[in-house]
């Protein structure tokens, strides 16, 4: 092997290496022993097929099929490693995708410019805010966007043989549920529609998206739970910089929940510098796309930003109407995620931008373009340092107490009867989780129907939940009814009281005739009607049909991807003999 070829291989490998290593630096303590619990990220340390995982716990399933993916992986490698693998893998996928897209913008992108793309794709406010709130499924959507843009363009310009690969990729993107599927459709739809619709691939993509959505969409459409206008307003994007909501969105932030906003975004200087680089990168990407043929690849970014801004302005209640009245409109409620294609495009544009700055003979090169390029490449990190090491420790893996796990195992093995969960609040601060805010773990640990508060407590008030039984319990508790009485009225047989949490557990005195199944530091478990006949668990037809659709779609997609992989592997020895592999 010559030195030149070895050197070329090293250059080609550098972005790969950085794409693998940088997510490790971002996640840090989140990859440790145990599981990470942060806001919506509630991950059972014992993989179990609970009603939550199967979408049977609420009228509109939430964590479907994403929790099922985590459980499947958890059965293979263990729950903690499965979570770590998914979080890390999603960031690696985002890095590879952004580099892939940037090579479309500029085929001869130097290795160091590709490294800058990796940094921008992994290190930005979008990633930080979604990581903190625990929405790995939105990050999955973000990560698949660049891959889908490249695939969709190939279909449009006739480089791909048919659209089966694109359909399969869209279907696989749907494993993250509504969050990731919405972003996949946003990435692909406009590319296939503009300037004239490519009906055949479009129909294929729609079929793939509808198919993979079955597990959550069919039960949700059948149940049609009411969507609250309060929720639509609460989930509208919010500024995370002093630059206002729209510029916060352009810079990749603006998530509605201020608890996720990093401190440095409050600095006009840091936010301004980050914004300038994003705008320059977007301009560079747009210019490259215009040369390429592909201005249509700008459409997903533009449409996503326009929708997010529409959610902010809500002219004449238009956005609220879409979210609350149009069937399926609820998936758009958290509109900030729609800027994902914009963030991806900006990350890919950074590569072209820094490559231009260092171009030999270029105007920038004569005035220290190399140094400037390095600074620009590092701007994402310099302006958002708190993303490092598990967002400064906000994401840290912890061991779930053994007694709480034992209580969940005990209830899962007990005769079916339903479990009432106290304290009556959806969110917790577990003492053993550093008092970080997270969902209660119990519904994800117990293989029984868990009756829990599903309203969303915000500082501005509560966003109503969808479960009518939970609403009745909430009203009873507000009226001063004893918690055990209120839960018993709804037919639950067991009650699990979590301890060492905020809000504090109520004082529960086991009523006469009940039996204490566990009484430990972290859990009190009562059987209110010992000896009662087990309740028959009913699986709604809509869920069965939905899951069948999802499973068949995913099987077909995996079949297509396997066939494509085998073909590519067969071609590889001939095409790449003596050449250097590149992203």
């Amino acid at each position: 092997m010559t030195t030149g070829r070895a050197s070329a291989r090293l250059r080609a490998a550098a972005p790969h290496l950085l794409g693998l290593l940088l997510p490790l630096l971002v996640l840090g303590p989140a990859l440790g022993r145990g599981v990470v619990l942060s806001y919506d990220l509630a991950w059972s340390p014992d993989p179990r097929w609970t009603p939550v995982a199967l979408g049977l716990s609420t009228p509109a399933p939430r964590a479907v099929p994403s929790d099922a993916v985590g459980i499947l992986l958890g059965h293979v490698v263990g729950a903690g490693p499965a979570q770590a693998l998914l979080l890390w893998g999603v960031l690696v996928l985002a890095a590879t995708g952004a580099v892939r897209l940037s090579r479309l913008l500029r085929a001869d992108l130097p290795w160091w410019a590709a490294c800058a793309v990796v940094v921008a794709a992994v290190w930005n406010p979008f990633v930080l805010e979604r990581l903190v709130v625990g929405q790995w499924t939105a990050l999955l959507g973000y990560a698949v966007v660049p891959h889908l843009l490249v695939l969709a363009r190939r279909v449009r310009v006739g480089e791909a043989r048919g659209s089966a690969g694109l359909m399969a990729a869209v279907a696989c993107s749907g494993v993250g549920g509504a969050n990731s599927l919405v972003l996949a459709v946003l990435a692909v739809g406009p590319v296939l529609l503009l300037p004239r619709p490519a009906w055949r691939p479009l129909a294929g993509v729609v079929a793939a998206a509808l198919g993979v959505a079955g597990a959550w969409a069919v039960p949700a459409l059948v149940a049609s739970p009411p969507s609250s206008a309060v929720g639509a307003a609460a989930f509208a994007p919010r500024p995370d910089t002093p630059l206002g909501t729209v510029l916060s969105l352009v810079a990749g932030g603006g998530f509605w929940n201020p608890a996720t906003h990093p401190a440095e975004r409050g600095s006009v200087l840091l936010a301004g510098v980050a914004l300038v680089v994003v705008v320059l990168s977007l301009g560079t990407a747009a210019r490259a796309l215009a040369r390429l043929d592909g201005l249509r690849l700008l459409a997903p970014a533009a449409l996503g930003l326009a929708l997010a801004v529409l959610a902010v302005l809500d002219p004449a209640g238009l956005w609220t109407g879409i979210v609350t009245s149009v069937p399926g409109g609820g998936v758009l409620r958290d509109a900030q995620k729609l800027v994902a294609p914009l963030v991806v495009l900006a990350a890919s544009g950074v590569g072209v931008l820094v490559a231009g700055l260092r171009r030999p003979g270029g105007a920038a090169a004569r005035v220290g373009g190399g140094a400037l390029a390095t600074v620009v490449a590092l701007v994402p990190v310099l302006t958002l340092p708190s993303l490092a090491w598990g967002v400064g420790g906000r994401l840290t893996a912890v061991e779930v107490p053994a007694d709480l796990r034992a209580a969940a195992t005990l209830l899962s093995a007990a005769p079916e009867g339903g479990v009432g969960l106290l304290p009556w609040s959806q969110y917790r601060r577990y003492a053993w989780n550093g008092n970080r805010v997270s969902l209660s773990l119990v519904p994800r640990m117990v293989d029984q129907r868990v009756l829990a508060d599903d309203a969303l407590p915000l500082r501005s008030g509560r966003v109503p939940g969808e479960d009518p039984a939970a609403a009745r319990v909430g009203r009873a508790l507000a009226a001063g009814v004893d918690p055990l009485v209120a839960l018993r009225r709804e037919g639950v047989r067991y009650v699990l009281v979590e301890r060492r949490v905020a809000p504090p557990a109520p004082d529960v005195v086991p009523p006469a005739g009940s039996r204490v199944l566990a009484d430990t530091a972290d859990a009190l478990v009562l059987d209110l009607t010992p000896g009662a006949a087990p309740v028959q668990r009913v699986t709604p037809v809509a869920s069965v049909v939905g899951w069948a659709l999802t499973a068949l779609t995913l099987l077909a997609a995996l079949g297509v991807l396997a066939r494509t992989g085998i073909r590519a592997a067969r071609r590889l020895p001939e095409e790449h003999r003596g050449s250097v592999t590149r992203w």
Partner: protein
Amino acid sequence: MSTPVAGFTAFIAGLIIALLAVIGGVKAVAGGQNAAAKSDTVVSYDVK
């Protein structure tokens, strides 16, 4: 050390140095997390 290796190492080193430098500054201005704690009667979704 070949040029790409040196370049990549310098890039990573730059990243780490930049991080350490700025983390110090931000920590100085950022408030402590989980300030509200066990005494909460309601745990809101939009608080740290």
